[in-house]
């Protein structure tokens, strides 16, 4: 197991360097200097050249990349161009918000997909409903689902707050109430995707001999389903979860924008709106790294529960 972890980590580093370098080059030089982006298309050549010199955009990409990574390693991501605050100071309060939202969504999706599809009671009623809901879940974009939920539950029924974010410190109740609709919006897609994967695997597992034996021994349907089939059918869902993490970040960007949640996604959209290049760069790099690390984690988790892949 330790050998496997080490091998995976060794592979991660060159991959991560390649990915971030390509993205860095796309953003800083392949399509022109960022100075043009920050100053606008009408900027004079002198102003652009002056900014290029000041920020070092006139140097080769490799030099810029190495310097950026060197600074980032010490926690220095530069200064926001729009607000003149350090990027680190802007990111610090936003990261936990996005982490909480994404983790809540993916865990809820995992639990919902696995438990609903393992239920043995009323399967005839539940299965078609789950199928229909799954299709809706993967085809309705986050912004449409979010807007619909806000319209139904906040504007029509007046049950939940429309948008906004209340930190834990200001009360657990309001915090959870504000979190409810965004989490549902974000997790719909994953619940559906996991549900499709899990159901196919569940059906294949249910045909195996050991299930037949368990049934023949007189175990209850529920026990067979949850104790015998579930642990054997849940593996592909973990893989799927690992592969979906990238999309989860994209979904979080849209969801945070819809519900005005002060997370990394909304910070990115705001940075794009104000052409705040250092902030956009730092957030992109951070997201790439986080997704790569989370993928590694999903792989390790998979290896932990399925010894076959450790070879």
């Amino acid at each position: 197991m330790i050998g496997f972890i080490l091998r995976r980590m060794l592979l991660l580093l060159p991959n991560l360097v390649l990915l971030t370098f390509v993205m860095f080059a796309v953003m800083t030089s392949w399509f022109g200097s960022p100075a043009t982006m920050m100053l606008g298309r009408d900027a004079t050549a002198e102003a652009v050249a002056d900014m290029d010199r000041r920020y070092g955009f006139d140097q080769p990409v490799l030099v810029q990349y190495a310097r950026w990574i060197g600074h980032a390693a010490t926690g220095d991501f530069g200064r926001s161009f729009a607000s003149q605050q350090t990027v680190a100071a802007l990111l610090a309060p936003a990261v936990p918000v996005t982490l909480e939202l994404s983790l809540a969504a993916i865990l809820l999706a995992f639990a919902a997909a696995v438990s609903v599809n393992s239920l043995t009671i009323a399967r005839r009623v539940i299965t078609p409903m789950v199928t229909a809901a799954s299709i809706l879940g993967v085809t309705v974009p986050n912004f449409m689902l979010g807007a619909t939920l806000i319209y139904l539950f906040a504007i029509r029924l007046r049950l939940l707050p429309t948008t906004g974010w209340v930190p834990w410190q200001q009360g657990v109740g309001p915090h959870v109430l504000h979190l409810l609709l965004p989490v549902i919006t974000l997790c719909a897609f994953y619940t559906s995707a996991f549900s499709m994967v899990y159901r196919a695997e569940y059906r294949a597992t249910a045909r195996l001999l050991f299930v037949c034996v368990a049934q023949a021994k007189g175990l209850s349907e529920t026990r067979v389903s949850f104790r015998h089939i579930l642990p054997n059918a849940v593996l592909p869902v973990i893989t799927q979860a690992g592969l979906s993490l990238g999309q989860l970040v994209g979904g979080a960007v849209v969801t945070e924008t819809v519900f005005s949640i002060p997370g990394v996604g909304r910070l990115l959209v705001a940075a794009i709106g104000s052409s705040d290049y250092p902030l956009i760069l730092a957030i992109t790099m951070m997201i790439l790294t986080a997704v790569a690390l989370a993928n590694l984690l999903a792989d390790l988790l998979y290896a932990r529960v399925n010894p076959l892949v450790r070879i």
Partner: protein
Amino acid sequence: MIRKPGRVLGALIVLAIVLASLCAPLLSSQNPNASGDDMLSPASAAHWFGTDDLGRDVFTRVLYGGRVSLLIGVGAACIACGVGVPAGLLAGYAKGWLSVGMVQLIDLFIAMPGLVLALVITVVVGPTLWNLMLVLGLVQWPGIARLVRGQVLALRDTPFVEAAQALGGSVGWILFRHIWPNIARVVAAQFAVAISVAIFTSASLSFLGLGLPPPTPDWGSMVQGGFDGLAFNPWLCLGPGAAVSLTIFGFYAMGRSVE
């Protein structure tokens, strides 16, 4: 075809949407970009979804908005397949370092956040029709390549491919005359899914403010524009949102036949 009702339903929905956006001038007598005097008026017989903040008829704009979305979706899917299919064929059929390298490359990009990449690259290159197609196509190639690779791997050691090899056939001849006809159906289905993903992502981009510049009617930016008016006229926001969801559903159902 008939045995897969999901596919038929999807195809019918797509047909209806293509017709509606092509025949938009026949279905609505109004100009999608003409501003009127009654701004933000609620849904009525004259304006089915009401009017937006510039007094433009939202229903007409929803009809015309299909044109851009369909164009971007099909264009992006063509680019995704144009890059992904050859890459997948190569990764599946080649042996040695070429195959290993391709698989590494596919694995590297497949888990990347497509929407975030598309967002940032669009900022850098600018949201024009061509750029959007390119960006939305390029973020999808790894998925297609992986699918094609899996299909090729399953066929590579079958007797008919071995026979073709024994006849001394060139790699190109084997790939295109013997392997390609067997995977074309799967790729065609995935093409429809790629269109649905491209429309999904492009609508999300324009919702975030990175779509085609105004006044082009565009579903994502219309949802964004109507969002603040959700309380007094939900059609302003949910009308275009429903149109884009239905389109995505249609293409998705066409590609992935519903059980």
